[in-house]
């Protein structure tokens, strides 16, 4: 795995997933929802139906393409919410310390102690199923790792000479955090962010599998898996293809995270320069 091959493979898989989601209307053979036809229900994969069809005769290939939109939206948006919350809490806690640090630490420990999926389930139960509630539920429950890392970075960075220098120059706390600390902790935050996207996609799949995700009949990879549950022995392609899509996307994101970690390491930066 030299020369950033994990970065290339991971980036490639992730880019593939994104372009598939964006280009779904042009790549799909049929409409993922409306083109149900019981005449060709549960067809096995063939040249006509690349990934086969489901019990209502809908094209799995088209549904997987459209399903990418939900999975990726959930992965990216919810992880962005997580990153913003985690950085805001961790950075201020590490920089200011004191009672605020205690509060943030308590919250982080609380979040780590509650299984995030259960917490997300509870939020979904209150908000009801749907894409927006998914984003909120997953966006509020996975910031603890980002927060820990931001806090640890802030603790070590705030003793650096340039932070002292900024104070001496009359910079305010907020300015110091944004211009001096944040750019220097971005590397690990981005790495954790890409890894978090992968786990958010898995959580979406899990929540959709439990029927709390995107409402049927609109496809998401998780809900497709959930619907395929009963036919797993008779029509395995119903679960194999969405499962494969999840697997490849999450694998891609994890490889991308690894690759980015190598690149964003400041030491390797100066070596390249």
């Amino acid at each position, binding site marked *: 795995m030299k020369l950033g091959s994990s970065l290339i493979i991971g980036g490639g898989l992730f880019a593939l997933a994104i372009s598939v989601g964006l280009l779904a209307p042009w790549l799909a053979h049929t409409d993922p929802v409306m083109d149900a036809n019981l005449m060709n229900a549960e067809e096995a994969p063939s040249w006509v139906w690349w990934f086969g069809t489901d019990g209502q005769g809908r094209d799995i290939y088209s549904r997987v393409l459209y399903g990418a939109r939900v999975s990726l939206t959930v992965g990216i948006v919810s992880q962005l919410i997580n990153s913003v919350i985690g950085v805001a809490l961790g950075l201020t806690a590490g920089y200011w310390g004191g009672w605020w640090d205690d509060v943030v630490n308590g919250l982080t420990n609380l979040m780590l102690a509650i299984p995030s999926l259960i917490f997300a389930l509870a939020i979904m139960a209150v908000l009801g199923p749907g894409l927006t509630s998914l984003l909120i539920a997953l966006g509020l429950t996975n910031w603890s790792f980002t927060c820990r890392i931001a806090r640890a970075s802030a603790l070590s960075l705030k003793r650096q*000479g340039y932070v002292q220098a900024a104070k001496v*120059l009359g910079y305010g706390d907020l300015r110091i955090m944004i*211009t001096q600390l944040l750019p220097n902790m971005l590397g690990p935050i981005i790495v954790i962010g890409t890894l978090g996207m992968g786990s958010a996609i898995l959580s979406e799949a899990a929540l959709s599998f439990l029927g709390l995700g995107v409402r049927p009949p609109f496809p998401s990879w998780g809900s497709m898996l959930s619907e395929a549950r009963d036919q797993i022995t008779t029509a395995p392609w119903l679960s194999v293809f969405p499962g494969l899509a999840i697997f490849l996307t999450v694998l891609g994101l994890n490889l991308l995270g690894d690759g980015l970690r190598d690149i964003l390491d400041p030491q390797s930066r100066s070596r390249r320069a």
Partner: protein
Amino acid sequence: MHEPAKRPGDDVILSVKDLAVHFPIGGGWLGGGHQLVRAVDGVDLELKRGECLGLVGESGCGKSTLALSILGLLVPTRGRIVLDGQVVTGGQSGDRKTLARTVQMVFQDPYASLNPRQTVRRTLEDPLRLHGVTARSEIDDRVAVMLKQVGLRPEQAGRYPHEFSGGQRQRIGIARALILNPRIVICDEPVSALDVSIRAQIINLLLELKETLGLSYIMVSHDLGVVEHMSDRVAVMYLGRIVETGDWREIFERPAHPYTQTLIAAIPDPLRHTPLATTKGELPNPLNPPDGCAFAPRCRHAAAVCQRAPVPPLETRPDGHAVRCWRADEIAAQTALAST
């Protein structure tokens, strides 16, 4: 530079009166058990315009704490700091900016003191913007002039710190300290992290800038060689107090406090083959300082009077040389006797 500065307008730009900074240690919010570290305990200091004051002492003596409170980054427990006629010991955030335009600092480690993600230009521009310089052309001009003054080329402004050598980085650090046109610069061991071959360049640059820009320096250092070369006056600190202060020549040629004598005797000198003087023991625990003179446990001249409270006063002689030692006169007499 080394002639005693006897300028007509010799006025005081910074005066520190009875400054103390105490840190509570231990104890928690369950109460009890607080102990005080008296990092700085009653320091009086004066810095005259255009002067370089060397602040000397071993690590842990409180010189950095003193510097930080002058910079307004530590709120003193008691005492006052008067800068250019203004009392600045309040510590409100509004004053921080005004203070920043008066006092700046050059840091010890040029590798840790520059933000690796900022170009030199941003490092110099941002403070200007923060302090209300908005015109693009004026910012560019001031950055270019400042870079030239510290011996860098204006074209280098677009580079990142890792593209510079240690000496160049320290020049950038000096440029950052001077970009707001401060009157006073606190240099915290400005050359101790540099290669020996670079040190002289940086010291000469600092001296040159002091003359051209009319700056006053406080040189915090434990390298007496650097202090001897740069300072007009020297103050020696020990365990949070000043034990001796005076003109640099006085201090280096006729040190009166046994601690200063030991420090000076410890300067390695290839030409003078006298054995280096050594002190026994360590700096006393600041949580539990000695009752009398703080240096008594390590002093070879210590007598009974030194071990008892009170702490000896800092007594100023007519020539401005001040010593905090009960036996300074006796020791001087002894030394004179020994040398004849």
